[in-house]
């Protein structure tokens, strides 16, 4: 047997893997620092030349603008305007995510329908919307639909005497009563319904019957809601045209409607593709097994396919939620007063641009990170526990 080449007693440092790895990392770090330093020195040099404000003191200045659909006063500080913009962003994102999920799931299922016409309709919808720029949709909704196709306030559409649709916005029936109380009641109703559903599942597991926890939960939710509605004496108020505006109900600004509609349409076309892909990705054996135990078509979809499909779809759908939230910034192009629009206006009014936009970016970053934490939490909850 030939002797192995003897290894040297001490590895020189330039061949020592640990040393090399550290050297490489430090080199990379130095490069990044050099880049940052270069940017920073440029920044310092240019700032000293132009003498503009770089801190956040502008937040205390009066805002000097008003926000439509809000009792925001001109003399309030810019800080409050940012808070209002933030709330508007959250509002659009929240409603948009819910509506886009519902519409997207429906269209995604429709694309796999056995019915030829439904399938075609779904395909046309998805292929048409997915390949258009979102900004085009928003511009179209704003200029083409809300401002041009909707009637003027004098001859507004009043379907069923419940809604008022005009180019000054859409008014919908809304309850009368304190907001905080209603939110609390809805929250309580959800909790009670959840608990009842859980109890029902436990009971059903013992007796071996079908649980129908969703039905139970929903009925309890409705009962609690209607009961407290009657107890606290809320009432509905339908909007009506008065002069050159509407009174009563909840008024949705034209820009809000345009933004919300286009975000929902655009995102739902992406969610539909994800849902379709996930349904197709569910193991075929699962559907065949459902057929074998003679579940009906809707039972097969509801109990076997969709729960597993959503597990697959969850990360991708979470990404779409993040996209939707970030895309609300396009509301600024049709002057919906969300975060970006507020930043743009304060900058136009003389606030320093760099800190204002940086602050806006950081807020979006915060929203995105929070959302992805929530999505990741549900993702972990839903993930298949493997050996």
């Amino acid at each position, binding site marked *: 047997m030939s002797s192995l080449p003897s290894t040297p007693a001490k590895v020189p440092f330039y061949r020592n893997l640990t040393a090399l*790895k550290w050297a*490489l*990392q*430090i080199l*990379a*770090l130095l490069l*990044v620092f050099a880049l940052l330093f270069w*940017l920073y020195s*440029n*920044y310092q*040099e*240019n*700032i000293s*030349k*132009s003498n503009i404000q770089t801190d956040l003191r502008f937040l205390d200045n009066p805002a000097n603008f008003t926000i439509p659909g809000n009792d925001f006063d001109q003399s309030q500080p810019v800080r409050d305007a940012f808070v209002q913009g933030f709330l508007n962003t959250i509002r659009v994102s929240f409603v948009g995510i819910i509506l886009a999920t519902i519409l997207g799931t429906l269209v995604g299922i429709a694309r796999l329908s*056995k*019915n*030829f*016409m*439904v399938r*075609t*309709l779904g395909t*046309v919808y998805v*292929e*048409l919307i*997915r*390949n*258009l*720029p*979102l*900004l*085009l949709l928003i*511009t*179209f909704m704003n*200029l*083409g639909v809300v401002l*041009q196709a909707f009637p003027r306030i004098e001859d507004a559409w009043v379907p069923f005497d419940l809604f008022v649709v005009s180019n000054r916005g859409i008014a919908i029936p809304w309850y009368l009563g304190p907001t905080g109380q209603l939110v609390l009641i809805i929250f309580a109703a959800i909790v009670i319904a959840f608990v009842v559903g859980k109890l029902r599942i436990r009971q059903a597991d013992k007796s071996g019957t079908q649980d129908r926890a969703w039905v139970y939960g929903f009925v309890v939710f409705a009962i609690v809601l209607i009961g407290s509605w009657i107890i606290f004496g809320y009432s509905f108020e339908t909007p009506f045209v008065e002069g050159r505006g509407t009174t009563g109900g909840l008024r949705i600004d034209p820009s809000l409607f345009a933004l919300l509609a286009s975000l929902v349409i655009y995102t739902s076309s992406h969610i539909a593709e994800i849902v379709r892909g996930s349904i197709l990705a569910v193991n075929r054996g699962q559907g065949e097994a459902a057929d074998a135990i003679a579940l009906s078509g809707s039972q097969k979809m509801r109990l076997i396919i969709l729960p597993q499909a959503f597990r697959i779809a969850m990360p991708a759908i979470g990404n779409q939620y*993040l996209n939707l939230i*970030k*895309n609300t*910034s*396009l509301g*600024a*192009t049709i002057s919906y007063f969300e975060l*970006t629009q507020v*930043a*743009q206006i304060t*900058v136009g009014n003389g606030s320093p*641009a*760099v800190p204002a*936009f*940086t602050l*806006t*970016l950081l807020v*979006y*970053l915060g929203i*995105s*990170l929070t959302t992805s934490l929530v999505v990741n939490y549900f993702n972990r909850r839903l993930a298949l526990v493997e050996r």
Partner: protein
Amino acid sequence: MITWIRRNLFRSVTDGILTILSSALLFYVIWQALQFVFVTGRWEIIQVNLKILLVGRFPDELIYLLGFSLLALVFGISSLAAGGRGPGKQIKLARTIWEAFQRFGLLIATGALLIALGGDMASLLFGLYVILAVIAGRIFGSIRRKTALSKLPGIVWVLINVLPALSLIFISISQAALEEWGGFLINFYLAIVSIALCFPLGILLALGRRSALPLLRWLSTAYIELIRGAPLFVLLLLAGVALEFFIPASITPDPIFRSVTVFTLFTAAYLAEVIRGGLQSIPKGQAEAGKALGMSATKITVLITLPQALRNVIPAQIGQFISLFKDTTLAGVALSVFELLNVGTAITKQDDYLGQGLVYESLAFVGLLFWVGSYVMSRESQRIEKKLGVGIR
């Protein structure tokens, strides 16, 4: 036929109702669309502004440069498509035509529409030249397969086909300043330049995020997550006011420079995630085989894992390119770049058309161009996906 109808349209009562409802909706939409296109639409606004929609304020006397660039590009692409290695399959003529129609019918139809809108001899002739360039490219490509040219290394072949187009494009840039570019041209320019620039950065970030070295990993992850958490629109706005502070005072950034910078930095983060997905899809055995052969870590990455990873995610990369292509519209509102959507809304405010509600016509035209571009690209990416067999296991 009747069985088909019963199976696909009227399985049960609810199915029948759904069929009737959805057909009614579909036919109503189609009817409205047809009526808009052929009866009520006033397309003269597009006809008059066709040039500004397509190329912006590009100087008239230099437009021939764009024409030649397009011809060279078409020639190069079709030659590359025809001259790939591998045995030429014998396919029946009818089938070839049908496949070509499926793949390019939409593009041809759009081209024909543009010629019709242009409405003069020159645009018709140019359409003919484009067709000739395609045919010439195919012939040139097939010559390569049959003659000694096939011994050329692939990279030289690619260069032969790409260089004329590239040099013509550079000549166009040097002749007509970028500020004069506009319309659909600038959308394409922004998308292509940004994707080309962000590619190296994206690869580095992806490798960094997968690296075993903690510092590199953290830096790349931080960059990717920071960029992915920020809206592109706000980044563009920020670049609009702040970019000049971070670069030497000798460079004065114009809107196009700003948007290319932002698009590049932004897309790099997303591309890095796509490439990371590709790297994760490579089985461990590949790298281990490289190690067994005594290759260094760099060699394993460059020669084994990275090429396979990039190949596996070609469809996802095209998807990223499509979304960048659509996002170039944001440069219009954020930085007043004179791109297609911006032009489309601006022409409705011309004196001749102001307040006549011609938004539908101009937005329909803008939408058509974007739609055809994205749709054709996504179809091609599906074709590549099938060819690679990535989706099917």
